[in-house]
């Protein structure tokens, strides 16, 4: 696929998503909003997983830092959307800088365990520091800010959807540029062979840390959206079990194709909706879908589709 047709495909997808609230029932507008938010979380996670070959098991804690940052501002400060984002995204960037610094020097299972450990610590802070975080009840009861200039209220689910779409599209745009940049190339090289990369003159830890911060910052942005969408921030989104979600979505959709994780998020929710109308034990079905995907289609659903469509034997597919 050439650069031009890819741009058209992206624009077409964006236009289609923008039109959705005008045609689908309100219930689905809610679901789609959540899909978009989780899509951004999964895609930011995949900058580390698919891009750098690092499995972060603490991504939800950065998502949570974004949510709590925004909730604290909206609860105690002025009802400003800009400030809520600044607090959530800035907080997530800062926390990922610290956690990243301590994690990027380790590989594979050790990296995963370190991120898991930090995730558990942050969850405990959110859960036990009642005075600030509201404990297990979380933070709620704040008014939603209105969109600056337009003056529309995010209380309207359609406005919330379009706002989410705009932020997610911007976040995915950033990830796309980073993925294709010189930095992205060096990052993929670190995934392919980190030792060789050091021997051609790169400090692998520095590149990984930069990726960790970009990834954590965008996960924080997704967290801010989640806080606005639910009008609350709760500790359960910081639990390590929640960190499994972006992992599952990336694997389901495909970590080797750019939009794979977002596609995985959509498949995840579609499956959940379809199955929960029949049975409560939908995780059994998710497992039953995930196992054959991992065993027979390790490139994920979208990855496999792209491979069938495009020629074989190219480098990284996008």
């Amino acid at each position, binding site marked *: 696929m050439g650069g031009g047709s890819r741009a058209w495909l992206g624009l077409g997808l964006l236009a289609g998503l923008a039109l959705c609230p005008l045609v689908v029932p309100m219930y689905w507008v809610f679901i789609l909003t959540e899909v978009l938010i989780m899509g951004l979380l999964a895609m930011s996670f995949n900058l580390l997983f698919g891009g750098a070959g690092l499995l972060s098991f603490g991504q939800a804690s950065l998502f949570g830092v974004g949510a709590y940052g925004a909730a604290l501002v909206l609860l105690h400060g002025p009802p400003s959307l800009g400030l809520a984002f600044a607090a959530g995204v800035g907080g997530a960037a800062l926390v990922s800088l610290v956690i990243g610094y301590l994690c990027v020097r380790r590989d594979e299972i050790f990296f995963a365990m370190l991120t898991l450990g930090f995730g558990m610590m942050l969850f405990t802070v959110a859960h036990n520091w009642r005075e600030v975080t509201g404990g297990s009840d979380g933070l709620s009861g704040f008014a939603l800010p209105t969109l600056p200039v337009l003056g529309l209220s995010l209380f309207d689910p359609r406005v919330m959807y379009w706002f989410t779409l705009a932020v997610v599209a911007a976040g995915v745009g950033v990830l796309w540029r980073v993925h294709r940049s010189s930095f992205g190339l060096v990052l993929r090289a670190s995934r392919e062979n980190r030792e060789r990369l050091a021997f051609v003159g790169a400090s692998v830890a520095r590149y990984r840390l*930069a990726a960790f911060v970009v990834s954590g910052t965008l996960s924080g942005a997704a967290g801010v959206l989640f806080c606005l969408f639910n009008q609350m921030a709760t500790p359960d989104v910081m639990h390590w079990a929640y960190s499994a979600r972006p992992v599952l979505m990336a694997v389901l959709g495909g970590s080797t194709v750019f939009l794979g994780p977002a596609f995985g998020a959509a498949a995840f929710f579609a499956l959940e909706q379809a199955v929960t109308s029949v049975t409560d034990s939908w995780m059994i079905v998710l497992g039953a879908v995930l196992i054959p995907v991992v065993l027979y289609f390790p490139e994920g659903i979208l990855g496999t589709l792209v491979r069938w469509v495009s020629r074989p034997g190219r480098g990284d597919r996008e």
Partner: protein
Amino acid sequence: MNSRPLLDVRGLSHRFGRFRVLTDVSVRVMPGRLTALIGPNGAGKTTFYNCVSGRYVPTGGKVVFDGRDITGLPAHRVARLGLLRSFQITNIFPGLTVLENVLVPLTLRAGRGMRFWRAHHRDPALVERAEEILERLGLADQVGRRASELPYGDKRRIEIALVMALDPKLVLLDEPTAGMTPEETDRMIGLIRELAARSGITFFLTEHDMKVVFSVADHIYVLHQGRVLAQGSPDEIRGDPRVREAYLGGSLDP
């Protein structure tokens, strides 16, 4: 010719726990002179390379490169100073294309690795340079292929391309023809000779294959049980009885 050695290793020692792998090894590599380090299996050749190139911190001695003490510097700092190594086993970026493989070191050398915004393939100067290097190594028609799909000999040449891309002063080649077919070996010998003569890069190689060593080296060091047993021109080494004994005779004859 410059009389200062490009690489000056003085009294290098290394041990793993109580096991001494290298003892008081001193080696000098003069610029432009193809120097080789040979020795039977387990003599410590690879450990020596690892100590010089920054993978291990030697437990004793000094490594001076281009007049600068580099003992204990990490690999990426050593590489930036212009001392590079290739590996005994193929060590490239398998999932990237051949072009991307070469673009990685070029990008790093140009100090553009932290560019987050501009697309890497829209850097015409770097892409041109990469294509030039690949052309020189006879890989021009493979640029768009995934490196992992190439035959063994081609992968080894990508390995050399990665090194060339950094405009090194000194290249350590660790058994560059290991595992190659006779044709691939001849091609690699030709390539090393040509690069040594024309690129201004100094090569220092370890080799198992005596035929390769005696056909390319100007100066040879023999490592035996972690010590320098002998050094000299190929003819001197060939006639040295101690070297013959270390190799249990015979195998030194090409």
